[in-house]
């Protein structure tokens, strides 16, 4: 599935939010996989997955930033978009430093979200296409 089409990996501990966001993304024709916590996501995401990670910043046990760090550690190159309920400036700076593409605030506007996600997917496709070049860098 990952190889067929780029996928949005959506991680949020709030089931209602998870369902709503995935519905919105799907309504725009995107492939979505949902995870209720970061550990499950880390365990299941492949190294060579194509798409993007849409992470909730504030989650119990493993929060968004920790998930981003683990992804980097395991060599997962999925571009990351953060969603947060509280616009914590320090967290935002840390996320950007780790290479997050966007840092969005809940509740999020559909166009803004889809724009960020599509940009991330494009980036992922580009990265995947020039995997050699990226790998050299």
């Amino acid at each position: 599935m990952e190889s067929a089409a780029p996928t949005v990996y959506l991680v949020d501990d709030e089931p209602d939010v998870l369902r709503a966001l995935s519905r919105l993304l799907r309504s725009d024709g995107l492939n979505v996989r949902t995870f209720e916590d970061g550990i499950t996501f880390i365990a299941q995401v492949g190294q060579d997955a194509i798409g993007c990670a849409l992470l909730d910043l504030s989650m119990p046990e493993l929060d968004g930033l920790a998930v981003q760090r683990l992804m980097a550690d395991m060599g997962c190159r999925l571009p990351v978009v953060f969603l947060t309920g509280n616009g914590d400036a320090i967290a935002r700076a840390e996320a950007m430093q780790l290479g997050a593409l966007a840092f969005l605030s809940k509740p999020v506007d559909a166009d803004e979200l889809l724009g960020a996600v599509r940009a991330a997917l494009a980036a992922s496709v580009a990265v995947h296409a020039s995997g050699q070049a990226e790998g050299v860098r």
Partner: protein
Amino acid sequence: MNWISVLWPLLGGMSLALGLVYWVVWLRRREQRHHLLFAVIAVASACGSFVELRMLAAQTAAQFVAASRLQHLTFGVAILLLPIFLRERFAAGRTGLLATLTGLRLLVIAASLGSAASVHFTEVALKPIELPGGVAGWVPVGHVNPMMAFAYLNLVLILVFLAGVVREMHRRGDPLEQHRARLICASIAAQVVIGGGMGALVTWGVVDLPLVINTPVFLLTILVLSYQLGDEVLLSTRERARLGRSESLLRESEQGWELAGQAAGIGPWSWDARSNRVTLSPKAREMFDLEPDGEVMLEDWLGRVHPEDVEGVRRQTRDALASRSSFERDYRILVRDGQVRWITSRVRVERDADGTVTSMHGVSFDMTRVRHADAMFRAALEAAPDAIFLVDGEGRIQLANARASLMFGFSNEELLELSLGTLVPEWSHRPERRKYTSTPAPAPAVERRAPTRELLARRRDGVPVPVELALSPVDGGLLLASVSDITERLRGEHESAQQRNELAHLSRVAMIGEMSSSLAHELNQPLTAILSNSQAALRFLAAGPGHEQDLRETLTDIAASGTRAGDVIRRLRAMLRKEETEQEPVDINQLISEVMQLYRSDLINRGVTVLQLLENDLPEAVGDRVQLQQVLLNLVINACDAMAGLAGERKLTIMSRSLGDDEVEFSVWDVGPGLAASSLEKVFEPFVTSKQDGMGLGLSVCKTIVKSHGGRIWAEDNDGPGASFHVALPSSARVGPRVVTTSAHDGG
């Protein structure tokens, strides 16, 4: 020697002996003058016997006349004294008559002494005769002396006097005295008739006799008199002996009475109307502060009576003497050291057959101590801040203090007509009351103080008053009921409850301010879901038909998220609500999950993991749900604050369990730095805080809330790391089967 010269001295000797005997009797009983009179009569009569002997032995007429004058003197004196004797002995006989006959006799005696001749004859010649037994004698013959008329008038008057005495004694009615009077008068009458009659016959020459027959005739009278007097003397001696015995008995009994009187504080006394003298027992004298002995007149006694009471005492005494037979009076007396004593006297008035007052008999009691005790009781009663009633078994008011009148608006007289049930209606329906009324004996010690109860009383104007009623049984089947108006107390309690609630509210508002980011997050989540779902739905619509199922699911989710947001708002509003809620059963486990829901986001943000150890079938507590939530939330926030600086795992444990049969406990455990033993108590004091930005009111408010629920709150330093806070609340039901479930909770 003849029989007369033998017999006459013998008879004279008897008279003399009797006279001496009664002279001695008189010496012992001087007040009985009739004994002296009798002695004189007997001696005179004895002298007469010897004179008569001389008359018989006279050789010449001159000797005879001289002797006969002496004879007349001796027997004359006897006759003179006999009526006087009667008068002395019986106190009877007409005075005028007595004076007349005495005068006549004195006249005759005087005439006889003054005349040279015999009293019987002016001229006398002697005619020798021979008496029976060969005794030679003289019979006087001559002109009769006219003085004899007076002598015989005297004798007739004596007979009249005797008749008068007998009649009077008969009228007096004492049978014994009547008998004595009859006997004595009869013997005197016989003597007068025989002696006088014989004398007349000789004097007027009817018979020839020697005029010496007075001795036996007089002796007859003297014997009768002495027999009677002897009988009396014996009787009175016996009587006196008997009296002596009973007097000693009386003295003993008086001493007994005096002793009893002393012990019981009773002083008997009596007042004699004739002498106006008051006889008092030593106790009565002591009571009225009178000298231990000496005469006491009625006025001395009245002089002791208190000036304010004396008029009343006088009036009542006058009334009683005028009309009534007995009375009782309480009055004060002033004793010499200025002290006032309260005396109660009970008095009986004695009257004779005519209704004339003869005496008063009374007993007096010193009631001062009783009065003082009574006064102290009254003072205590009146000083009490409560309305106090003494009621009987039926609740009828026997005694009420001034405070009672003030509280209920009835006068004291009106209260005494009412029953406690009229004032405190609920009282009469209480089963406890029967417990007291059915047992006339004092209730056992454990029941002596009945529990204080809050009831609604009713004033005269119908206004209800909240009161507290305490009952305690007293002797005599009575109950002492103390009724206190608790309006002010209830108002105070209400005010302090209000203040407590306001403080709790302020503390809640402050706490909610602290967790505003968490609350914002809790609202943000459903809003995010709603917004995303709505936009997805718009896209489904734009895409044309074929998305109905998607639309239906989307709208269902939107509604659920709306409900969730509404729940958050509702909880928030409950927490911010100010007014008191009804006390209701509270499921502690449910309370814990509600609070965890409210604080969930903060727990996540603060990296705190939560472990809930909740006991199944936990009994419910009773209280204000919001305030109990506040307490738990406060403890949870404190625990999180305590672990804020921890580098390692921040673990929060919440536990619920039942304590014994009647308490439910919830506790919050952190793994922070823990508490010093010295601060375990202090943390609940206001303004004690370890936080830089805290006011230190949270835990003190928690303590206030828990105490107002009748519960306990305490802190402990854990065996492992951290501290724990415990709250125990009274449970509303019995403990169910204990099944403890453990669930790792991630805050979701």
